[in-house]
């Protein structure tokens, strides 16, 4: 407790704690240290004066949780305020709280949608889908196959037939995916989890679980 108080003011603590979707499962002081460990020379230990510190994407993307994730760059971009993957502490905490297991499903779906929306036009269009596919499969599908998959996906998920997926279409599709709903949804724990245990299994603090 002691060192927390010196790093943040009590109000900062309180605010973080309350806006965090899973306050008890992410001991975010641990996350702060995680953040600081990425670049000890950049991040001050004293955060009471709200210093303007940003960690560059190269550092964020080198975290073990993201390192091999094909979507790491998108994740960093979506959660960073400047849209380029450079993260403030707030962005970092945001990212962890959304990616944690207990974040509300809608919130996760929202951010998942943003992640898949590569050109930031608030729709997942065919180009986005192609990019997603190439990242997923490491470009192992032929162009023809990619095209066919895109077509089929649009067919299946595009409810209002406007040729692209809106957030609504996306959410609707995800509701049908039990695997996505549970502990799963996105990131780090997008598992198709283990139903009845999810909470117990996944609620663990990411900082610790990931460190292992």
């Amino acid at each position: 407790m002691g060192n927390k108080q010196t790093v943040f003011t009590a109000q900062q603590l309180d605010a973080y704690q309350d806006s965090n979707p899973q306050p008890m499962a992410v001991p975010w002081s641990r996350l702060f240290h995680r953040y600081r460990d990425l670049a000890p020379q950049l991040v001050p230990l004293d955060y009471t004066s709200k210093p303007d510190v940003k960690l560059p994407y190269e550092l964020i993307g080198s975290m073990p949780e993201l390192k091999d994730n094909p979507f790491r760059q998108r994740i960093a971009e979506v959660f960073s305020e400047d849209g380029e993957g450079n993260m403030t502490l707030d962005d970092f905490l945001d990212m962890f709280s959304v990616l944690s297991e207990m974040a509300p499903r809608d919130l996760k779906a929202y951010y998942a949608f943003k992640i898949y929306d590569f050109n930031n036009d608030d729709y997942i269009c065919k180009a986005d889908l192609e990019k997603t596919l190439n990242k997923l499969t490491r470009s192992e599908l032929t162009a023809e196959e990619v095209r066919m998959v895109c077509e089929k996906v649009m067919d299946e998920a595009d409810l209002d037939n406007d040729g692209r997926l809106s957030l609504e279409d996306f959410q609707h599709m995800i509701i049908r995916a039990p695997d996505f709903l549970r502990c799963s949804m996105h990131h780090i724990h997008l598992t198709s989890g283990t139903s009845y245990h999810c909470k117990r299994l996944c609620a663990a603090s990411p900082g610790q679980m990931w460190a292992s």
Partner: protein
Amino acid sequence: MAHSVSFDMRDLTLESPVDEGVVHDSFSRLIEEQSQSLDKDDNGLEMQVLSEEDVSEEDLLEEDRDNVPYLVGSTWDRLEQERGPEHTDPLTGEQWSNATLKVLSSMPSRTIGRSRGAILSQYYSRTLQLRRRRQSRPSLRDYPHSSRPSIRGYGVEIDATDLGREECKKDKLVNNLQNLSVSDRTRVLKGMPLSLAEKSELRKLATSYKGAQMPYRGQIPCCSRLKYYIIIALRHTWYSWLSFLLSLQLWQVALKRVSGRFGTGVLSYFVFLRTLLLFNVFLVLITGFFLVIPQAVHPSRRTGPAVAFTGLELLTGGGYFTDSVMYYGYYANSTLNGSCQPTRNNSRDSNRTDCSPKDPGDAGGGFHLSYNMPLAYFFTIGMAFFITCIILVYSMSKSFGQSFRVDKPQGSLALKVFCSWDFKVMKKSSVKLQSENISTQLKELLSELSSPHERKSVLQRLARVSVHLLAWTMCVGSTAAVSFAVHYFSEYMHNDLKKRADLTTQSPLEKEASLLALPVVVSGINLLLPGFFNTVAWMEEYDSLSMHTHVAIFRNLMLKVSVLAVLCYHWLGRIASNPPGLNLECWENFVGQELYRFLLMDFIFTILDTFFGEFLWKLFSQKALKRKRKPVFDIARNVLELIYGQTLAWLGVLFAPLLPVVQVLKLLLLFYMKKASLMLNCQAPRKPWRASQMTTLFISLLCFPSFVGAAVCVTYTMWSIKPSGHCGPFQNLTTMFQSGKRWVQELADNHPKMAWLAWMHTYLVENPLFLFVAAGIFLVVIYFHTQVVDGQRKIICLLQEQIESEGEDKKFLIRRLQAIHEQRRPRPVQRPTPLGSERLDENV
């Protein structure tokens, strides 16, 4: 302008499925008109439709003109820069004028998620709804109002770029937030896709308006600031305590490592193992507290000679262990008193226990603790089964609810693309493997889709059916053969045992060792036959992999159930019905020992399988066959082995109350062993593994054949088999069940006030009618539930149709909007810029 966009949406938006029919009709009308208009491409007709929609063309234009400058916002600017003045809309591939695009861009569905203002107003309407709902229909609170947020957003005026209005919206939102209860407010705030800083600002605003409760730090007096600090400190202690507890969770790190390398499929096996472990720990606790400890504190002494510990007992469970708390026979059929002097219900000398110091006065005293062992035994086992049943049914229903949705599971490809990445996987090679898997799966799905029904010739289909038939015959045949073999072998061993019982000359060691033959044979069958099934399945070539897995699981299950059924007949039918034939003093002990042996042998064979099947096979295939692939962890088979072991443990609780302890140890060892072997020898399975549905299947299998089977056997034993007359808590009763009955009668005799208990017992427990009525009600409830689900499915279908036509409507309206613009303003590109700058100047 927002009016003009939202008015029609309001009509189209459904408030509840009740007025389904009306809305649907209106839709069909719209579609009709639209198709007509499209056919004729008649402008006049289009105008007519528009006026039916209560929008005059002028209105629309007026609105548009007014709002054009407002739309010159940051997001729009950015988009405009990216796209240039003329855009090709992916909607129809047509070119839209700027004005149309601006109208489009401010449509609620398009602003969602784009800007802060849109999010704020979306949540404003949501909180409003929440408030209304709280006031009128609190039962609806769990309705997934958030699942499709944007529809609700239609009712709200959205103008993403007006800063002043954003502030206003924020105020409204804050106001709404204040009126929500604290928990609701936190929930809404947590669900908002805003950044942490914004959320905390909103929260601060929402709480600070209330003044007295949560004042700003600067304004509060010293003592309340102290209170504030204390509250925060307490809360943080609580949170750190919780996170500490979470970090204590069993095998968290190990599970994380497994899932990081093998994904969720394999993880589900280990999580299942942990569930079983928890079930067994629960059993251990309940039997330990209520049976073993009371009995161990009052040890009963037997007349027989003390048996020396030889070591073979660990395998057979007999000998030294026979006369211990481990087995049924050791438990007294008396009331254990606090003074350590059992009083007899009957006078059986062989069982008399002498506890020192004797103090009859104490035993008769008012405060002595009496513990009626038979009753405790009966109720402990009963309650253990009952609670396990409830936990199982609960977790099963939860699992079902999570993995099966009301609407039909279609759209597998889209799901595959967006939801198949297992974000738990962190290891580089596994990541690579996973993307390989996904691409092969996608290819498979594609090939299925492109040639959904490859017409096969009659001959081919016939060949296929005959192969399936052959495979099934082989599997069923081998299962039947194995069951008969076990049956006859157990009979043979039984007769052999009878002979040995008559011959007293044999050494007890050899006799004990011969008991191991049956468990060894059964475990061997359990190990080898699944391999045979796999070979047969390989021959079959199922179309879908899930079909393949399900068939494999079904066959394995069939084998295990039939073997267990034969064994249960062997124990309960053959041994229990005629204990003197075997010269058994206590058949319950014998059955308990048998179960112990089976459990242990199962474990030993699993170890052997892990060693030979995984480790040596890996060495062999890598060294000798020069293959790169490691063996695949067979989740289905391993899980079924776990279920088999658990069934044995449940069966054995009655006969050997400490059997769950053995099972707990076994599971603990198994976890570490399987984990080590997995890390060392295996690679992630290549088959797609729907972990969630599989978990549902596993837990239902654990519930249905396994637990129900064990419970039926135990109940049958309690209800209708005569317990042995010389040992155990139920000696000289005709059935175990009678102990409860006798106790109730005694109670009713001694305390007339308790007569209702006896009455209840007679009518509810003994009378099967009650059971039938309860089961009937249960079935009726299930029936209603399925009917409701069916209705929901139908409504979902209708709604989907509506959404589709709504999309068509949208296209249609946009197209006409464009047409109108082109009519009115031949060169619409020039207009917004001067107007916009004017307005901006005015604002400045």
